[in-house]
């Protein structure tokens, strides 16, 4: 009697084990298939402008003139690539000190107030839709820059300002986690040697957590690199390399969103947009590789 009950229990466990296994495997297979087909789709579409339309790699990456509807059509994507890099790097430069200082404040200086009020406030930023950021940028930041600096206010500076606020939550939460994970012994040792709080933070805490802090910065940059809507609204979208930060410029994402709906599938004009999307995707892979690399260094 007791034996059979035990057997039934064992059977039940085996069934549970198997359903769990099957369900997880199914989820993973679905995920992997989705990722692979996505990459495959963008890649085939993106390469068709080279293969079918015979556009050279040099023209896309080296050309500075973007005239897809011109005679002859020119597809120089360099202005977009430069635009994307300069906006996201500038956004990271603005946001990194802010987010690292905010994280230091929340973890080291005033954990109670910081954790209770500052962290939810910053996390709230992550929940605001990007069109709202774009509209606020267009209504507040652009007129502000227009009044102060020469130019029309739209441009890389306005784009980077909007992006820096958008990527602040990502950077701050990663920096906070990194700082909180620091073993307390390290800080205590520093204090025990007579170091002030500033000395401890600057010489011990930041150098040890630097790779993790950088991970946050790179992830934030990746987010900025891929953001389309908010940037498109404030950057001006002229397909030229701008001479100043306050002159109308373009990014890869803004070029894609501006023209994707207006072009016909399978045409050269549409295929080059997919090539831009492919460049964007490959850049994201590079960002992920950098993050992995930094994480490995952080764990060492």
């Amino acid at each position: 009697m007791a034996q059979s009950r035990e057997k039934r229990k064992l059977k039940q466990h085996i069934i549970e084990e198997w359903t769990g296994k099957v369900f997880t495997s199914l989820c993973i297979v679905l995920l992997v298939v989705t990722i692979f087909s996505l990459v495959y789709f963008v890649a085939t579409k993106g390469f068709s402008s080279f293969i079918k339309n015979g556009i050279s790699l040099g023209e896309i990456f080296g050309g500075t003139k973007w005239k897809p509807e011109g005679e002859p059509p020119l597809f120089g994507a360099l202005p977009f690539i430069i635009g994307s890099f300069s906006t996201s790097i500038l956004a990271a430069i603005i946001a990194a000190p802010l987010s690292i200082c905010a994280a230091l404040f929340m973890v080291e200086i005033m954990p109670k107030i910081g954790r209770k009020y500052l962290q939810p406030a910053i996390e709230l930023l992550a929940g605001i839709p990007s069109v709202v950021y774009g509209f606020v940028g267009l209504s507040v930041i652009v007129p502000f820059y227009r009044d102060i600096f020469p130019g029309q206010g739209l441009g890389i500076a306005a784009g980077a300002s909007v992006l820096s606020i958008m990527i602040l939550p990502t950077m701050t939460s990663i920096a906070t986690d990194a700082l909180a994970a620091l073993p307390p012994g390290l800080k205590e040792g520093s204090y025990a040697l007579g170091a002030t709080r500033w000395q401890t933070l600057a010489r011990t805490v930041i150098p040890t957590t630097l790779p993790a802090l950088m991970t946050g910065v790179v992830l934030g940059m990746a987010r900025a690199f891929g953001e389309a809507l908010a940037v498109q609204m404030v950057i001006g979208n002229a397909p030229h390399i701008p001479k100043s930060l306050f002159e109308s410029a373009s990014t890869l994402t803004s070029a894609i969103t501006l023209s994707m709906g207006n072009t016909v599938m399978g045409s050269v004009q549409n295929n080059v947009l997919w090539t831009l999307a492919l460049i964007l995707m490959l850049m994201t892979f590079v960002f992920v590789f950098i993050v992995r690399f930094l994480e490995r260094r952080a764990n060492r």
Partner: protein
Amino acid sequence: MKKSLMLVMALILTFTLAACGQGNKTNNSATGNNAGTNSSANGGNDKASELSGSILAVGSSALQPLVDQASKSFMDKNPKVSIQVQGGGSGTGLTQVSGGQADIGNSDVFAEEKLEAGPAGELVDHQVAVVAMAAVVNPDVNIDNLTKDQLVQIFTGKITNWKDAGGPDQAIQIVNRPSSSGTRATFEKYALGTKTEDLAGAIQEDSSGTVKKLVGETPGAIGYLALSYLDDSVKTLKYEGVDATEENVANGTYPVWAYEHMYTKGEPNEVVKAFLDYMASEEVQNGDVVELGYIPASKMQVKRDVDGNITK
């Protein structure tokens, strides 16, 4: 764990490169698929004997509000019909109707201007409304007329200050549309008569609302908008001395306008035809069309073909 993740990333990259070699093959199979869905969609539509069925209309965001509003009153009258109206742009509309994924493709431009001659020849044009465009400037620019020649010189960058066009001493800021946009194509074709290049420093925006906001706020700005978007925040210019009004468009004296097209692939089936007839009926033409700021196609005293030839 870390190693396996790196492995996955590396695999994805290799896959990307491998996909390069197979690009042609997939394209072929993709077109094969399109043909398949197309024929099955036609077969499904043929079965609709009484007025029931579904219609998918995709395309131009400029035409979307009109089709959307008309479709609602049409569905009220024919409860068995369901109509879905989606945006996405003229190019998307033409692609999808030509590929058979949509029943109606909404477009700001003639299909011949976007598609190749073969697929464009299969599409049947239904012109439901007319949209006119006017050049607009910032209210502080004290001019109210520009000639075609002046507009060309402004949009090609030969005039960069308003004083050369009879205005104040102020730099001109162009607020343009992307080069693929139907609105820009119309403006270039009928107002400028020439294609223009994207100038350095010019602003490009896709949405009419943003264009209006930027022209209204930026000193010295010039752009162009559909008549339905005009209000006091921007100053509407005459073109060659002609006011941009509905009467002037209808009698052919104001040339900067374009048809709003609803394309079907081949002759439409019963349900789609009923909806297109409804769009052309007096009820919609004098109701929704006027209400939303379009000009009724039925009021036009002139006709224009794809090459721009005008007939009375």
